[in-house]
């Protein structure tokens, strides 16, 4: 059965304190690993697609990487406006998300 698992469930960071979010997947026939950001009361917003192991994508303070079994979302020197829930997905299946809070 296809499955996507995220950790940690929640993460509290001080502004400027870098960290990483994990997404583990067991999916047959992966055709793309997706990362989304979701703010409270809103729908998820697309961030990145990764298609093959070794691929990396960057956007501002975020960098996503992919291996054959997991993906990481690295957050460098986060700011309070990066606070949100980060979701990963594969083949229309979403993980439960990591709720990130960044404090000034």
């Amino acid at each position, binding site marked *: 059965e296809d499955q996507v698992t995220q950790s940690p469930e929640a993460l509290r960071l001080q502004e400027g304190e870098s960290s990483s979010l994990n997404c583990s997947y067991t999916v047959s026939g992966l*055709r793309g690993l*997706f990362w989304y950001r979701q703010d409270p009361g809103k729908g998820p917003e*697309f961030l990145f697609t990764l298609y093959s192991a070794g691929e990396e994508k960057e956007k501002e303070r975020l960098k996503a990487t992919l291996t054959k079994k997991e993906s990481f979302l690295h957050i460098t020197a986060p700011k309070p406006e990066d606070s949100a829930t980060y979701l990963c997905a594969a083949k229309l299946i*979403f*993980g439960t998300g990591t709720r990130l809070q960044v404090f000034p």
Partner: protein
Amino acid sequence: DAGVTQSPTHLIKTRGQQVTLRCSPKSGHDTVSWYQQALGQGPQFIFQYYEEEERQRGNFPDRFSGHQFPNYSSELNVNALLLGDSALYLCASSLGGQGANNSPLHFGNGTRLTVT
């Protein structure tokens, strides 16, 4: 460029009733997927519509049904509502065809359904 729009934004229904939620996809998109998101959880896949047919379905009972119209807009119907159906219902559009699962999803802001 209009994004995904959903209506209504909020809805309160009584147990046993039926509800219809509506979605207009992003301009140029032909595939619509529906998700249920409980508080503090990730979105759960209900089903996906392409060319007016249900192409894929998640693990949801037959009480959940849908429709896609020729203009690509879509409806989600839920019959015999249960208290556990209370959730945020998200619609997402994408480009379809064989590459549907390769395409990023563009989400609306959802319909908050409360069943009392």
